């Protein structure tokens, strides 16, 4: 069991001041978990010492007094709205208006039946608020999985190229609705991907270690990716004129990163 697991187990105990043997052995030999256990124990001790102010009124005494004297216990109820019995009123209404309601119900069924034929299956029922899935999140996870499976630098290079494209597209989509800080984050991620991903992987494909045909393939790959970065820069630059001033800085950062990456790739492609 690792320390994180032990520490979680301490917090889930009925009382962290009473440690079972299974945890005691690890804690005895681990300073970090010892400190944690002591802090958890102290937390519970302090929680039990939290002061409570006295009640402002004398309601306990009133209730006890009334009970003792055998008086009816009368109170000023809290201003909580009384819950009316909806079921009773509803049944009465339905009974009084059977014919009209029956006709309306039939009409509703006809409409619903027609609607269900026209709408695609799998549509969530009307009125149920669901959190939709985040396509961009799924894309990023897919890119990570692709990187986990990739065996060669050229594969990783292509994946990073795709990731850079995902990020620049997302930035353009968010440019009018996200906050400047959020947009700046995306720009920073794009910059990291270009420098630490694209350019780094390109460096892992030095031309001098390759055969002639492999060198030609390398140049083709690098040129293609340089072209993609150029596209990303152009599209993003075009948008800087259409977004609020706050968003411009982040988009410009993407443009600059893409152009810098493009330049590096072309240099590497031509050096080979």
């Amino acid at each position: 069991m690792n320390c994180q697991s032990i520490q979680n187990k301490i917090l889930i105990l009925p009382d962290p001041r009473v440690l079972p043997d299974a945890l005691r052995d690890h804690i005895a030999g681990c300073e970090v978990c010892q400190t944690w256990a002591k802090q958890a124990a102290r937390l519970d001790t302090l929680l039990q010492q939290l002061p409570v102010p006295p009640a402002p009124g004398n309601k306990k005494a009133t209730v006890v007094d009334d009970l003792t004297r055998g008086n009816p216990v009368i109170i000023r109820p809290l201003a909580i709205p009384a819950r009316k019995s909806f079921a009773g009123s509803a049944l009465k209404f339905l009974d009084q208006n059977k014919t009209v309601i029956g006709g309306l119900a039939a009409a509703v069924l006809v409409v619903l039946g027609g609607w269900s034929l026209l709408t695609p299956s799998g549509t969530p029922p009307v009125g149920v608020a669901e959190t939709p899935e985040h396509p961009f999140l799924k894309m990023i996870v897919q890119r990570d999985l692709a990187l986990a499976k990739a065996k060669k630098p050229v594969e990783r290079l292509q994946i990073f190229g795709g990731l850079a494209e995902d990020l620049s597209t997302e930035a353009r989509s968010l440019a009018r609705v996200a906050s400047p800080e959020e947009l700046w984050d995306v720009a920073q991620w794009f910059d990291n991907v270009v420098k630490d991903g694209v350019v780094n992987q390109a460096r892992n494909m030095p031309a001098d270690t390759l055969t002639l045909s492999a060198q030609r393939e390398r140049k083709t790959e690098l040129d293609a990716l340089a072209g993609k970065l150029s596209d990303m820069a152009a599209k993003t630059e075009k948008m800087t004129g259409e977004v609020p001033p706050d968003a411009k800085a982040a988009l410009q950062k993407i443009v600059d990163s893409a152009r810098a990456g493009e330049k590096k790739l072309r240099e590497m492609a031509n050096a080979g």
Partner: protein
Amino acid sequence: MIRETDPTLPNEEAEWIRAAQSGDRDGFNRLVERYWDRLYRWLYRMTRDRHTAEDLTQETFLKALGAVQSFRPGSNFRAWVFRIGHNNFVNQKRSERRTKHQLPEDAAAPDVGGVEITTENREALEVIHQAVADLPDDFRSALLLRVEEGLSFREVAKILGTTEETARWRVFKARQKLMKVLSPELLPPGATAGETT
């Protein structure tokens, strides 16, 4: 506020309940005496308002008095009363806007018969009080029932209308949040961060 420390004598309480169910108000009276302060304390922590807590406590015991016939002898009376209290709290929250009152400095309860509070602990307690107040309601309620009231996870679950596993999880989450926020305050007095004791 006097903290109840003497253990419940099961036979004694069972007698009071039997008496209350057969119409003997004195029996119910004893149950009020036993559990009023505890319920008030928990409801104060939940509502963070003395007036509302007192009102809810009264409301709870009066509902309990009205429903005492339906209480199943042999089951946990404290959990039953706290359950009514919890329901009242939930209803009250739904219907009224909650106003928080800071604990005034002169309103701290004297520790009659309780644990002596050292100066170091007093400072930590002020911070902890706020951190507990900031916890989400369901974490706070579970934590305090477990730690302050000493109820088992099973009893906590019954009061909050959930499963034992969820009650355990809520207490875990509450402690986890407090540990994150409070770690400097939780070092033993005199120790500094990084020191091993």
